[in-house]
């Protein structure tokens, strides 16, 4: 994998630092056992962040991931009778197909992905409510065993978190050793330059959005099955968490920079923070404050450290469609 070690080390240090801060004062936190809930949180946010970061690498942003995850959860729970793998596969297929359509529309229209995905965020959220009749969809009692399967504890992992880790490995490989993966970096690092060099711009965008919707769908499906219920509005906060994790992990908003290892570190950092707070008995909203704070701190640090990137963004020409 093309890993920028210089970029990764400070982030790993940050993750360890956050862990240490909480571990020093909280005995429960120090225990190895505590890594299990950490990785459970990692499982869902990791998938969302992974997909989101692919769109960010391409120089776009998919705001609809929360709604998509909700829809996937509803599909999976409703179809739980098919068995674990088939119902999840069905959910992922549906969301991935939607992602492909969305990516195609964005690429062909040349429209800014922010504008487009705000609309789809609303629409798909509405769809979730329609599909679930405005209430939580409970899993069929016969299929409760599925939840157990997913939360089956294997040391500090579970099938859910292992799936996420596998997804990271696969997407990471895709991005670093395939031509299509490189094209995503290319159009993100310099849309005009890539076009001038002959890179097709439609395909990488379609791939990026298919991945973001598909991975969010995978996360939503598994998380909903795990909890035994799918709530139509249950994934509203994953967008913030995903973006924060991606940025903390070194994925640049301006496109073209970042790698999945960094994203994984970013998700872990966030999870260390959140689990540390909850272990202390803090209310859920403190997590919001902390996440927002972490995001702002990382943004400011990046600003100071790399004015060059920001100046290039600020001097961007007045007419360039598609750049967030």
């Amino acid at each position, binding site marked *: 994998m*093309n890993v920028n070690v210089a970029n990764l080390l400070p982030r790993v240090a940050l993750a360890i630092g956050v862990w240490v801060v909480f571990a020093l004062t909280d005995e429960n936190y120090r225990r190895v056992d505590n890594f299990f809930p950490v990785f459970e949180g990692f499982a869902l946010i990791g998938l969302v962040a992974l997909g989101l970061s692919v769109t960010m690498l391409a120089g776009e942003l998919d705001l609809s991931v929360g709604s998509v995850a909700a829809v996937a959860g509803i599909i999976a729970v409703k179809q739980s009778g098919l068995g674990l793998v088939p119902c999840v596969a069905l959910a992922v297929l549906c969301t991935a197909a939607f992602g492909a359509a969305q990516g195609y529309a964005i690429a062909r229209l040349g429209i800014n992905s922010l504008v487009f995905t705000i609309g789809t965020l609303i629409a798909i959220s509405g769809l979730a409510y329609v599909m679930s009749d405005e209430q939580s969809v409970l899993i069929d009692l016969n299929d409760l065993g599925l939840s157990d399967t997913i939360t089956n504890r294997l040391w500090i992992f579970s099938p859910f978190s292992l799936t996420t880790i596998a997804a990271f490995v696969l997407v990471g490989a895709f991005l*670093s*050793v*395939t*031509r299509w*993966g*490189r*094209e995503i*970096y*290319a159009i*993100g*690092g*310099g849309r005009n*330059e*890539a076009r*001038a*060099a*002959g*890179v097709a711009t439609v395909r990488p965008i379609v791939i990026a959005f298919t991945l973001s919707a598909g991975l969010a769908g995978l996360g939503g499906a598994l998380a909903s099955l795990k909890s035994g219920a799918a709530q139509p509005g249950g994934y509203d906060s994953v967008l913030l968490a995903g973006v924060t994790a991606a940025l903390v992990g070194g994925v640049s908003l301006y*496109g*073209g*920079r970042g790698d999945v290892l960094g994203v994984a570190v970013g998700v872990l950092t966030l999870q260390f923070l959140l689990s540390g707070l909850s272990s202390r008995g803090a209310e859920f909203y403190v997590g919001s404050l902390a996440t927002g704070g972490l995001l702002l701190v990382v943004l400011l640090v990046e600003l100071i450290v790399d004015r060059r990137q920001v100046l290039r963004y600020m001097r961007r*020409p*007045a007419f360039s469609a598609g750049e967030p």
Partner: protein
Amino acid sequence: MALLGENGAGKSTLVKILTGLVRPDAGTLAIDGQPVELSTPARSRAAGIAVVQQELSLVPTLSAAENMAIGGGHVSGLWTRRRLVRDARPYLELVGLDYLDPAMPVESLSIAERQRVEIARLLARQARILILDEPTAALADVEIERVTQLVRALADEGRSVIYVTHRLDEVFQIADRVTVLRNGESQPPVAVRELTLDTLVARILGRPLEAMFPERNRSDGDPVLQVVDVLTDGLAAPVSLTVHAGEILGLAGQLGSGAPRVLRAVAGVQHLRAGQVSVAGRQVVTYPIRRAIRAGIAYCSDDRKRDGLFPIRTVTENLTTPALGAVAPHGVVVRRREKRLAQELAGFFQLDRRRLDHRASTLSGGNQQKVALGKWLGVRPRVLLVEEPTLGVDVGARAEIYAHLRTLARDGLAVAFASSDFAEVLGVADTVATFYRGRLVRIAPATELSAADVLRDVTHAAAAKAASA
């Protein structure tokens, strides 16, 4: 094959036809005797044609190896870093970049190195016909040497190279034949060994200077702008010059000569590394732009699309932007004043007053340029600096712009403009300063210079003379 010609002669159009961006209205293209259709960039690439433009097409965040691989369709299978680097090395070696780590992101390379990476990419794509558009424009002397040697070596290997340039010394150094374009027409190619510097210069000049330049006036005013020993990015040696009230100073120089850099430093667009600038006897600090504007310096860049115009706003709004302080004295826009100023400026610049409420993007190139220039008069500057005053402007509007510059000078402004069109400089300016490769070559009254003199200065023909001897 060196392709020569002034701006507007048709060089870039020809390049666009060859690379599939523009369709020819008539005529045929043939490669190896077979007619070809170059209707899309992909077809052009498939035909073995590749181009290195002035605006490089390297993605900054990708490595050299990756940049060389993308977009060409010639790399299949797994794209591991090791493989890409391995594939890239031989071509990087060919262009003399064997010391480079192909896995470094391209943004950490110098412009010269990036240029060579682009050439390496062409080679990796097995291009047989290379088009290089002003490849040495942004390079330092020693780098130019390397590039020209490389180009010669590539041609010696059997590739065809179209070398678009204005630098005659390079032409005599490495070109086999020369094609001169004039006013959209090409002359038959001539072998370089059959040319001397003078005959080549004569071929380029060709047409008589049109009578589109206004009468000069005597400029005995006081010095308004004094630039002493300034150094800035793009200049290789300090530059000093003075512009008097009523005088038009023309800075002649081609791409990479440093002429526009002087203006930009005075205008506050780039940092002054050394030297002083004085306006009407008082030394001023000109960075950032707002300070320069307050000191009475107005600057109009060469790229009105980038920073000279607000295309989706109306002409009136465009014209009154620098003068918002006067047009909206207490924060509220006084419509009457705005209208009056816009009409006044429109009248002065002969812009159709009926178009004042239309979007600036609906104007022709010439009128857009007038707006980009004209808006500065609203703040009553002491100095007007312009880069490429008639770039992208049709012939009719050119004469008008020249006349306006002259009128402004007559009204007491100090006007200085930089242009790569040496005929324009000679025709309009009272005093001419010639630049080549970041150095001021000479300053002389326009009446004492001939077109050939200026052309020689800006193309460093002294070196060319030595080469052609």
